[in-house]
């Protein structure tokens, strides 16, 4: 049975740094290399295919969020528990020094996940926050990662793969029992919607938010997704006298449109096709581009947030209440 030990992984990593520095010196490079690390990012991939995508996304994230990334790659039962160290380097345009980040990829047969998780505390870069990103539906088995929880500042999950929103909020509540803060990429993907709505409402110079009576969120799928519930909850947080309404419509993306009205005020945002969203009502601009947020963009946004995210916390509580009320 292959063994994976933190000391040997860190030795491999140190050897790679020394080799890079040596290469720089022999090339008479003036500036050499610079290690960039602002956090530990532990990534739990869902399966083998997902692991390849996770590696790509993590590589893309490094430019904005240089980290020590530790990627857990699920493998078949007969695969060996194994680790590989990679230094990812790039030379920013116009500069003289390479910037490098560290990535550790651990291949984990399912039965040996707990062994692999025991290695992680020894691999974390000291004194830096640690974030766990549970990809796909892996977060639903978060009990398996419980060992890591005391070390984590944040756990990032994605409720999008769950069709039934009523499952989402109890699962998130369970995850939030530890000290780590929880982020949901379904919420993150709403940022552009929320920003547009906030800007439009501001531009309309609405004098009394209490006059708004209805917020309608149009969603795809038979029942409102977690994203639709989040959006409605966030609007209700702003328009306290309004009632929520949901309507299922055809289309792509979890949210298809929003209408806010009451007291002579009317604002409607409707996704037309691709990235275009039509705004009608009081705003001057008729169409804006609201690109579907990529996984990389959403993760990047989440990793940029340190400390508590009060807006999400309050919205989550309201959304959980809405989900409960909507249960048959």
């Amino acid at each position, binding site marked *: 049975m292959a063994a994976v030990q933190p000391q040997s992984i860190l030795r491999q990593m140190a050897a790679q740094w020394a080799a890079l520095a040596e290469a720089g010196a022999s090339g008479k490079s003036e500036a050499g290399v610079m290690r960039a690390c602002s956090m530990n990012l532990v990534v739990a991939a869902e399966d083998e295919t997902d692991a390849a995508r996770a590696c790509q996304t993590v590589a893309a994230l490094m430019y904005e969020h240089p980290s020590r990334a530790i990627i857990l790659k699920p493998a078949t039962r007969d695969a060996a528990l194994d680790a590989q160290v990679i230094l990812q380097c790039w030379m920013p345009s116009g500069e003289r020094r390479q910037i490098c980040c560290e990535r550790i990829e651990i291949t984990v047969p399912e039965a040996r996940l707990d062994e692999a998780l025991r290695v992680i505390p020894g691999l974390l870069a000291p004194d830096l926050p640690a974030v766990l990103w549970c990809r796909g539906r892996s977060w639903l088995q978060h009990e398996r990662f419980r060992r890591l929880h005391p070390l984590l500042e944040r756990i990032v999950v994605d409720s999008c793969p769950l069709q039934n929103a009523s499952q989402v909020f109890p699962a998130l509540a369970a995850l939030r029992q530890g000290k780590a803060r929880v982020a949901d990429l379904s919420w993150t993907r709403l940022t552009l919607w929320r920003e547009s709505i906030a800007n439009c409402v501001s531009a309309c110079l609405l004098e009394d938010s209490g006059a708004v009576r209805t917020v309608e969120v149009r969603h795809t799928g038979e029942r409102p997704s977690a994203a639709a519930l989040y959006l409605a909850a966030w609007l209700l947080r702003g328009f306290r006298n309004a009632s929520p309404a949901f309507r299922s419509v055809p289309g792509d993306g979890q949210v298809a449109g929003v209408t806010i009205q009451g007291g002579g005020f009317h604002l409607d945002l409707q996704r037309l096709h691709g990235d275009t969203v039509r705004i009608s009502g009081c705003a*001057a601009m008729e169409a804006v*581009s609201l690109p579907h947020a990529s996984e990389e963009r959403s993760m990047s946004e989440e990793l940029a947030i340190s400390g508590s995210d009060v807006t999400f916390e309050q919205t989550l509580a309201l959304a959980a209440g809405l989900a409960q009320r909507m249960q048959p």
Partner: protein
Amino acid sequence: MAGFDLLSDPLRFQVRVPPCACVIFGANGDLARRKLLPALYRLACERRLPPAFAILGNSRTEMTDEAFRETMRESVRQFLENSSFDDALWSAFSRNLFYVPGDLHDPAMYAVLGRRLDEIERTARTAGNVVYYLSTHPGHYAAVVERVGAAGLHAGRGWRRVVIEKPFGRDLESARELDRRLHAVFPEKDIYRIDHYLGKETVQNLLAFRFGNGIFEPLWNRRYINHVQITAAESIGVEGRGAYYQQTGSLRDMIQNHLLQVMATVAMEPPAVFEPDAVRDERAKLLRSVRIFTPEEADRNAVAGQYGPARVGGVEIPGFRQEPGVDPDAQTDTYAAVTLFVDNWRWAGVPFYIRTGKRMPKRVTDIAIRFHAPPLALFPDAAGDGVSPNLLVVRIQPEEGISLRFLSKQPGKGMHLRPVSMDFHYGASFGARPPTAYETLLMDAITGDATLYTRQDMVEASWRVVQPVLDAWSKRRFDFPNYEAGSWGPKEADDMLARNGHAWRTP
């Protein structure tokens, strides 16, 4: 309005930006084409501008709205930094781009401008808010503001603000005169004096570095800091602006405004709160604490230089006096170095050396804080003097970041020390494209945040600092040129530091 506040989410997107129109005087000029329009376009791309936003350009060139859009499109394409041009976004952005041709001194132009602003207020719903950006020759500032006032455009349904670029006067007297004329139309709170150095991320980061960390501030005083060097070097010459530059010189062009503001940020006391006036009060207080030189002190603590011709890297570089449009006997300082002292408890006796120049070996702006040497030299180091003082370098451009130099034992036998550097590199730790100084400052003007803008009392305090040097230099006839293009400046500048037992570092 509580509901609207609850729709904001400052962690993830810009807090609501008020609707407004931005009138740019001198819209066909260099600054507008190279900096302002690209900055506004970038802000639009990042959805930081409000949906109800319009730009109304003015210059003498006869153009239709459509021709103006086309001209600006080409400029934005050409001068956009660190990002790509998107046709679709430009198309949405340019829909609210308008133009009024006309002379700045013609009252009829302001009548047309007023009508266009009314129309824009109705169609683009800009709520009557207007930022007037004076991207014109400084000599027009007062007249334009007076015309705006005479046409009644300084007041309306919303707020009205005016943004002006340095120089704010040519000396203390003219700065006061300009201020008097600006204040006849706009109150101080609506006058935004832009100093684009203060908009640079690293300069802002100085505040975070000093007041967001606990470990540096206790060392930030005369007990631990030996001296401070601020360098702003340019490798280029006057680039065809010789005629303008010879009226200005580097002391007026750089030190009186940008570098004194940087110095104030380095040396100011912590504000009680991070609010515009609290921060500006501390900067102003620091500037008022800078010692005002007597004529003798001005001679001893300031050095003027002018570059002469040289062959650099196989290229013949003309001297300043050989530049087109420059008087062959010009007494203009293309280099200036000053030693300043801050007469307060924190900094008494600590020299602040500031230098700036054109045609220097490279383009670099940085601040070097040199700490005292250890009291006892226990170890021989590479330089053989047993001590190599710690140095904290804040790099403003081109590679923004912070480095701390300290001594480390060389591997191997013996106790041989060598200076090593611990680096924070902005690009490495925050890969995201930082906003340009103009993006930051334009957004601040629209949202009404004047933290990074200078105030009249700061302008006057800065002029008071440099005025004795200007007066002393105006009475002298310099034996220029006194440094070669491609060098670090005249020998007299080295001598000025040597008298205090110091030497310029090589950035």
